[in-house]
């Protein structure tokens, strides 16, 4: 692979008690790539994601981030250089939108005035109105707005890598679609490396450069959506057939111009 590697997993193992959550997984994510990891609940996809910024420590194998073996890097410093978007936001309820967004720069010791300017920049980037949202508490925001703040917070310290834990899963379909598209363009505009996990193959196909499929801790297949269709694995094929079947049924139910 000619491009430089942002994240590389080599024979990674993680056990919780007797359960092998991640079982000998090797996966490379190139710089600038949008990787989506697909799997059901208990497939190990969340564990795999969190191993990258050491929210979970691996039991075996090697993980490198931008060439550094993560076990040799201070975990706190590592997390500050990697953006992380949490499921349904993970915003701190006692902090305003601005304070939530500015948290990592503050931890890094950036001067207050610079943080404030950076927060305004980010609000604009994630298309939130500065005057209306800056000083609100998270509870006063809609689900979609919260997730935009979550994305802004992940980007605040200008990371080159962003990890996303089912970021749009809990949103209504319309918001989810818009947010996905908006993030995809941010990813391109900022030249980010993004790793997102989801259980939804449709979302994965629409957003990803490449997709990795996990089941019971094992990596079943990886590749572009097209490459995946050539995978011989029955589970992967079944995952891919589902969106297509849904489209066919939708087409049958809704006439071509029905929505206009």
């Amino acid at each position, binding site marked *: 692979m000619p491009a430089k590697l942002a994240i590389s997993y080599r024979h990674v193992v993680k056990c919780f008690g007797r359960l092998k959550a991640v079982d000998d997984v090797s996966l490379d994510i190139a710089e600038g790539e949008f990787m989506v990891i697909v799997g059901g609940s208990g497939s190990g996809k969340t564990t795999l994601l969190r191993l990258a910024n050491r*929210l979970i420590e691996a039991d075996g194998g090697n993980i490198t981030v931008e060439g550094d073996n993560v076990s040799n890097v201070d975990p706190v410093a590592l*997390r*500050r250089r990697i953006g992380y978007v949490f499921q349904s936001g*993970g915003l*701190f309820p006692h902090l305003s939108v601005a304070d939530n967004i500015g948290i990592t720069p503050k931890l890094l010791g950036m001067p207050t005035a610079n943080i404030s300017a950076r927060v305004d920049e980010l609000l604009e980037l994630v298309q939130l109105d500065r005057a209306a949202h800056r000083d609100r508490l998270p509870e006063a925001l809609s689900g979609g707005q919260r997730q935009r703040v979550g994305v802004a917070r992940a980007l605040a310290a200008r990371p080159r890598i962003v990890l996303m834990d089912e970021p749009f899963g809990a949103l209504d379909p319309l918001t989810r679609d818009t947010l996905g598209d908006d993030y995809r363009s941010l990813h391109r505009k900022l030249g980010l490396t993004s790793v997102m996990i989801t259980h939804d193959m449709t979302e994965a196909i629409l957003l990803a450069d490449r997709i990795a499929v996990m089941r019971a801790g094992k990596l079943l297949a990886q590749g572009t959506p097209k490459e995946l269709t050539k995978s011989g694995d029955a589970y992967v094929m079944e995952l891919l057939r589902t969106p297509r079947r849904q489209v066919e049924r939708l087409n049958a139910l809704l006439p071509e111009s029905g929505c206009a």
Partner: protein
Amino acid sequence: MSLLADPRWGEALAHLPDYLGNHVRVSLAALALGLVVSLPLAILTRNRPAPRGMLLAFASIVQTVPGLAMLALFYPLLLAAASVTLAWFGVSFSAFGFLPAMLALALYSMLPVLRNGITGLNGIDPALIEAAKGVGMTARQSLLMVELPLALPVMMAGIRTAAVWVIGTATLSTPIGQTSLGNYIFAGLQTQNWVLVLFGCLASALLALAVDQLLGLVERGLRHRNRLRAALGCFGIAALVAATLVPAMGRSSQGYVVGAKTFAEQYVLSALLKDRLQAAGLSATVRSGLGSSVIFEALKAGDIDLYVDYSGTLWANQLHRADIRPRTELLAELKTALARDKITLLGELGFENAYALVMPGQRADSLGIRTIADLAAHAPSMSIAGDYEFFSRPEWAALQKAYGLSFRAQRQMQPDFMYAAIASGEVDVIAGYTSDGLIAKYDLTTLDDPRQAIPPYDAILLLAPQRAGDERLQAALKPLLGKIGIATMREANLRASGNDANSSPDAVAKWLWETANRR
């Protein structure tokens, strides 16, 4: 309106700076100590279920110990500790007053602070703690920036509960020698001065409310990141402490300290002793409401300078003697024994305050009961009431043994209520005191003790070791010896149990001195 016009409010008000100041100091010191211990423990054990469970169980057990008992337990505990440090390091400390009260109250404050602290910290959504890690916080930053702020409302609720508890319970620290608003309550209960009781309760309730509101201000300030509010609340608490320190510093030397136990006669006698010392140009203050076991130790340790005790009480409690001696022999032996502790038995006041079995006069006559021996036949169908210590004292065991007494029921009561109970027929016999004025008032009769089961209880004046060679003090006190007869003391006690302005210990003490000199 007549209640408000009562002059005793003014009298109560005069003590307020002293009582309130001491109360604020001991409660806030206890609360501060409780917080300094409990909050770190709550934080340290938040992710460790086993020590957390043990800690909460310990705090809950502490809470089940009644306040009065807890405070009383700390006194002998510290006394023992003080003797150990004296033996090992050559330094001792006073186990009297502030220290035991503060430690016991601090222990009391721990449960709400621990429980709410732990509940608050454990109630935080784990996803938020994960998020704190994820954005790059260290464990310390996560605690300070996320966990503590989120747990703050629950934690502060616990701190406020603790503050109100401690301020309320501090009123019980009077018997172990810590001056507090409880001095009003104990004195008022003993001398049936309801104005004082009410005053003490109101003052401590208002203090609790004020501290609670100030803490609330601090909490809202912290929660809404409003520095002004938080600072205002902290300032309020600091001002409260500062205000109470002013009178304490102004009164640097308090002269001789006269002790008094928790009943009316003792309040009157301590006022009398204070008057005599002041008349001789000596400065003196009264520490009243001291527990009966605390007061002797306090004298021995030099925390108080003098007080009146009773020969039979010391015979049984300090010398642990169950045998009965004729009074002069008993007094001589007691004097020698006390001298071994360097305590001076200056002499007898002239009256005896012995336990006596007491019945309504008419009833005794109609049943033909004159002595305790006569009573024994009727006892199985009768009930008896005594004060809190009577039934566990050797006198009671001796009475039972000498006369084969066995009652249908035994009840413990506050001494002043005992007389009302027998007057209303609620109990048949009480273990009263021979010097009590209520015996005459309620037309009661004291039963003779032909087998001499009850030892003599001469009122005796005791001086602390450091006053053994104090000529001026002894000269001021000598005129009192042998001066107070039983009839005079009974009448004084009856006056003290009244509920008007003339029944204050000071007023009765003046009457007592004048009357004693006239007779």
